[in-house]
């Protein structure tokens, strides 16, 4: 933990509830505890205990906030579709709906399908939640609140999220079910494909910030990277949608078309774990987007305030994160599901080439800017080059679409003229 404030020091501090509460408000509790315990315990032990406290706090918080997220999602989606949504359990707004769902899941029978590979079948739900939680270790919540500011911060996130792909194969294989295996294969194809543009687009913030430390990525954003590198942000957002398997890329578990995909054979809490991991990682993607493109906990320097700055930073971060999360829900409520060939084409034939070109353009443009240039000048040049690349890409896409439409219409016309059946003619006459 990096502490900005070194107020808490002194060899013979004793625990004091007022100071403790004050340190909570300042978000310097760990420095406070460190100062209190200093001398009683060895430094290594203190750090280990603080780590455990931090991990338990963050993980418990995440598991609990998922209850709220599920409710929020159902409510917002319902509103978008002109429904009411949950409205019975827990008052008018159905606040306890998710709690009821959890209780239901808890009392389900745990079944293992016949012929299942027990190791893989039971390991998959564990691993999927573990990877979803582990990614949070490097997210900076506030100026002085971050699990650990690794020197490979953003790269670590990518590494852990790519490891989560394996759990799908475990689940698909372990279930001993053709549909599950097929679903797992398709999911893996999707995740693996969209990981490429995601990785490439994340190179750009690192290029701009010249660092992989998450805190330095935040500090480098005098101008938020959403403005400096909008294309990279858009590519990241699209691939984040696909990586978390949300609409319009939720064809892994298109309930209305195929059975649920790789987790058909899971029931009760084991299924709940997949659900949980999906929400935790969606929230994580929102948090990551807020951190690397929206400036994280920054708000015009207000977070630099002496006493309440860190708390303000925390609140700002959460507001940004939930704003991004809301966009995730919004997209889900607005867009229809795409077909698998469209999805893969979009990735390999549009996003990957685009992000490759973008990396090249940003790398070269960044070196062409004179060294002494100010932040705003740099941001402006990058913005212009980004918009230029984006414009060209969209124009190419538009022409391609026009060509496709022409081909399709021609085929339609030919089909009509060759068939030339009386019914068709009659319909045309009407």
């Amino acid at each position, binding site marked *: 933990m990096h502490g900005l404030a070194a107020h808490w020091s002194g060899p013979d501090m004793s625990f004091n509830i007022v100071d403790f509460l004050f340190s909570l408000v300042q978000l310097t509790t760990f420095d406070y505890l460190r100062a209190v315990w200093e001398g009683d315990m060895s430094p290594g032990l203190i750090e280990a205990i603080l780590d455990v406290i931090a991990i338990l706090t963050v993980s418990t918080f995440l598991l609990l906030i998922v209850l709220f997220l599920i409710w929020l999602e159902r409510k917002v989606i319902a509103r978008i579709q002109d429904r009411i949504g949950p409205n019975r359990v827990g008052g008018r707004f159905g606040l306890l709906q998710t709690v009821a769902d959890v209780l239901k899941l808890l009392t389900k029978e745990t079944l293992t399908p016949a012929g299942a590979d027990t190791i893989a079948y039971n390991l998959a739900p564990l691993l999927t939640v573990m990877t979803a939680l582990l990614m949070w270790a490097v997210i900076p919540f506030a100026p002085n609140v971050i699990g650990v500011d690794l020197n490979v911060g953003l790269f670590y996130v990518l590494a852990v999220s790519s490891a989560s792909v394996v759990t799908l194969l475990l689940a698909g294989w372990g279930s001993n079910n053709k549909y599950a295996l097929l679903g797992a294969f398709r999911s893996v194809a999707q995740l693996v494909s969209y990981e490429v543009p995601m990785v490439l687009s994340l190179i750009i913030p690192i290029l701009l910030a010249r660092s992989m430390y998450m805190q330095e990525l935040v500090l480098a954003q005098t101008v938020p990277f959403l403005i400096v590198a909008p294309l990279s942000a858009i590519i990241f957002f699209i691939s984040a949608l696909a990586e978390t398997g949300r609409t319009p890329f939720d064809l892994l578990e298109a309930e209305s078309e195929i059975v649920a995909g790789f987790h058909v054979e899971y029931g009760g809490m084991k299924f709940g774990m997949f659900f949980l991991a999906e929400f935790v990682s969606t929230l994580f993607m929102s948090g990551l987007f807020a951190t690397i493109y929206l400036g994280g906990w920054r708000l015009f320097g207000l977070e630099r305030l002496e006493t309440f700055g860190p708390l303000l930073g925390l609140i700002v971060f959460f507001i940004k994160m939930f704003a991004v999360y809301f966009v995730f829900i919004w997209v889900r409520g607005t867009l229809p599901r795409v077909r698998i060939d469209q999805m893969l084409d979009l990735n390999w034939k549009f996003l990957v*080439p685009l992000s490759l070109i973008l990396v090249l353009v940003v790398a070269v443009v960044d070196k062409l800017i004179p060294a002494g240039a100010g932040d705003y000048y740099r941001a402006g040049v990058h913005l212009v080059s980004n918009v230029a690349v984006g414009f060209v890409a969209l124009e190419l896409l538009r022409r391609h679409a026009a060509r496709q439409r022409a081909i399709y219409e021609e085929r339609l016309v030919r089909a009509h003229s060759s068939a030339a059946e009386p019914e068709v003619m009659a319909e045309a006459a009407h």
Partner: protein
Amino acid sequence: MLADWQFIGIFLALSPIFPAAPVIANWLLGPRKPNPLKQQTYECGVETVGDTWIQFKVQYYIYALVFVVFDVEAVFLFPIAAAYDQLGLFAAFEVVVFVLILAVGLGYAWSRGALEWT
């Protein structure tokens, strides 16, 4: 340095608790009356035929293949991006060459029709 990773290590050691606790609670609370019918594999109500082996397309392998190549590329590019301050214009051109060489591979796969979902 090692102290940084200590956090990750402890996290890795503790993180199985969070998914395991609900699953175990589920196992304790739920009924336990398995029977062969319940344990059947779900195939839309039809009995399973054969074992769980289907002819997979090579397509899947090709996607994973291109992914592997670009993943390794990222491993090279990330440290370079992090060190971009210390580099000159020439380094930028080396990166361009590096990426373009790999883009040729992508172009080959594309022109060969290997990226097509059929």
